[in-house]
């Protein structure tokens, strides 16, 4: 029987990199899932939560829960948004309906690579990419969801792709939500330090699981006129 999956694309994918959402749906379908997209969805509330605006975050989280509490399985192409779902309950009183919903939805929400590898046990999606790629560990996926081997295993099963590890793979790219506009110089300096560690390595594409990091990294590379491409994992996994 096909597993029914509800896609939570995240506001950034919806508005800025919609092709990542399409690729995610395609990947899930190739993995044998039936994918639905509920157009009532908007955002998980993370921008406000991380900036300290809890009342606003709670309001947005409530509408997220309205949409998703009835879904069996929720998959997001973002470690950061998936991790936010695990924090949602704390925005509401302990014994409220919302907190109960948040705890239950958190159990059923997965980041894309975690879902493919841990839940479906799928590694090979029949993708092909000629070139060398390096993986950027987005912080919340790595440190809150414990994703490390999963995306790498998926990349290693892409025909033609060679995974070249970046020494500072696990260092923050400097995005950090509002941090990137409140502290632009530090944010960029953090990224430059990270990218410096790639020096001397032949890499065609930098791949990550979060569009937010890719906006930061891609924006800097573009400004520097670098030929290095940035790709979301889902885009790599549908490449043929």
């Amino acid at each position, binding site marked *: 029987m096909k597993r029914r999956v509800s896609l939570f694309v995240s506001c950034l994918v919806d508005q*800025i990199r919609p092709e990542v959402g399409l690729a995610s749906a395609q990947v899930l379908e190739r993995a044998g899932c039936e994918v639905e997209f509920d157009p009532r969805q908007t955002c998980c509330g993370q921008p*406000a939560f991380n900036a*300290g605006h809890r009342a*606003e975050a709670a309001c947005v989280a409530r509408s997220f829960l309205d949409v998703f509490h009835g879904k069996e399985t929720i998959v997001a192409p973002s470690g950061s948004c998936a991790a936010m779902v695990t924090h949602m309950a704390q925005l509401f009183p302990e014994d409220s309906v919302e907190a109960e919903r948040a705890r239950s939805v958190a159990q059923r929400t997965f980041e894309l690579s975690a879902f493919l590898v841990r839940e479906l046990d799928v590694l090979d999606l029949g993708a092909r990419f000629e070139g060398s790629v390096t993986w950027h560990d987005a912080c919340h996926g790595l440190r809150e969801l414990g994703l490390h081997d999963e995306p790498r295993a998926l990349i290693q099963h892409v025909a033609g792709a060679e995974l070249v590890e970046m020494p500072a793979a*696990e260092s923050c790219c400097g995005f950090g939500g509002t941090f990137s506009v409140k502290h632009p110089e530090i944010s960029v300096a953090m990224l430059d*330090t990270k990218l410096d560690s790639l020096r001397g390595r032949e890499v065609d594409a930098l791949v990550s699981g979060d569009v937010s990091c890719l906006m930061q990294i891609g924006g800097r590379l573009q400004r520097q006129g670098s030929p290095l491409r940035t790709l979301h994992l889902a885009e790599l996994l549908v490449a043929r």
Partner: protein
Amino acid sequence: MSGSLLPSERFEENARAALADPVLHGALARATELFGERRSGALAQVPEWEALRERARVIKAETLAQLDVHLERLEANLVRAGAVVHWARDGQEACRIVEGIARESGARRLVKSKSMTTEEIGLNHALEQAEGQDREPVETDLGEWIIQLAGETPSHIIVPAIHKTKAQIAELFVEKLAVEHTDDAAELTRTARRILREHFAQADLGISGVNFAVAETGTLLVLENEGNARMTTTLPRVHVAMMGIEKVIPRLSDLALFLRLLPRSGTGQHLTSYQSLLTGVKRSPEDEGPEALHVVLLDNGRSAMLKTEVTRQSLACIRCGACLNACPVYREVGGHAYGSVYPGPIGAVITPQLSGLAKAGKLPFASSLCGACRDVCPVKIDLPQLLLHLRSEVVEGGRMPHARDRVERGLEGFIERVTFRLWRHAVSGPRRYRAASYFARFVPHALLTRFGPLGTWSAGREAPRLARRSFRELWKARP
């Protein structure tokens, strides 16, 4: 850049100055990387590391939940061992207590070993300024001594002179000590040792910090690598130990655990070169040790942190400095930018609680919330959770700290509040979201990059653009 504390209110400016200093940047990068590597190396030999961290977290949490009981027990056992115990509500009171001890004991020459708590309360300055005293203690930890000679403040909890290069230290020695120039680290150290030994020989009062205070025995543990703390606490006839009230641990046997965690996390050592376990005063003239021991128990804002379970974690810190070395923000800007003797992630958590959100409310925002600090913390303090908690306190207090003065702060805070409120309206319902998304596509990109939040973004990065069609439109059009 200045080598001293700058105001926390000016974090952005401080950080910018640090980023523009290539020498500082190089020194920081080398040192934090080295300590990070040493730590990983030391941990690799302790397979049960995670279990040790969890035990330490539990012991700290249990102790802090009943801090008053443990402190009273500590006091009783300190007194039994011959110590005099002083309670200090704040830094000023603590400084006055030490001034009084120095005056009453007739101490003329003071030495001091490394102690962040004394840095926190500005003890050296207070002793220097105290009326008719002029008894500034000589710092005897090599790094602290260098900083004292340079008239600066520490920029790291464990490695106070982390921001200084060997070449800068060599120059400093020539200037301040009138010695011949040398770039040889061993030779520089020999010079320091020679001069510091003279200070030790003459000192009649020694001031130290405390790493752990054991309630059941009244024993103080001081960790170090140079032997200077051993001398500070045993050679002079009077020893003053300054400790925050959170340093108490219940049992002597708990030390076995914390001694495995602290040196490995701090310097990547299996154990520090010296561990001084100090219990009371000397009992007979042949004994080693001071004739008098004074222990100052400092609150200075700590008891306020006990109030909630979230903030209470801040007091579990054992000051290893691992979170500084792991923090990508600290690695870029160094310790002085934080304007606090406690920099980095733990500093961004403790400082606003010690000196108030009005003064240090910017610090919790000086983080990308990457969580590297939480991963390395040997007592598992959830630093990102604390940073988020303090951010919401700042916001709810209506004090937006990202501005230079009150007027601007008010305006900037107002703009941020309005922005998030508008955003909330736009994204908490599908119809409003669709409408906002529709109209946003009519806003010229140049307008956003010039005036909006994308303005600061696009100084170093190309700003992201809205896709021509959103995912939901594309999905709808899917065959």
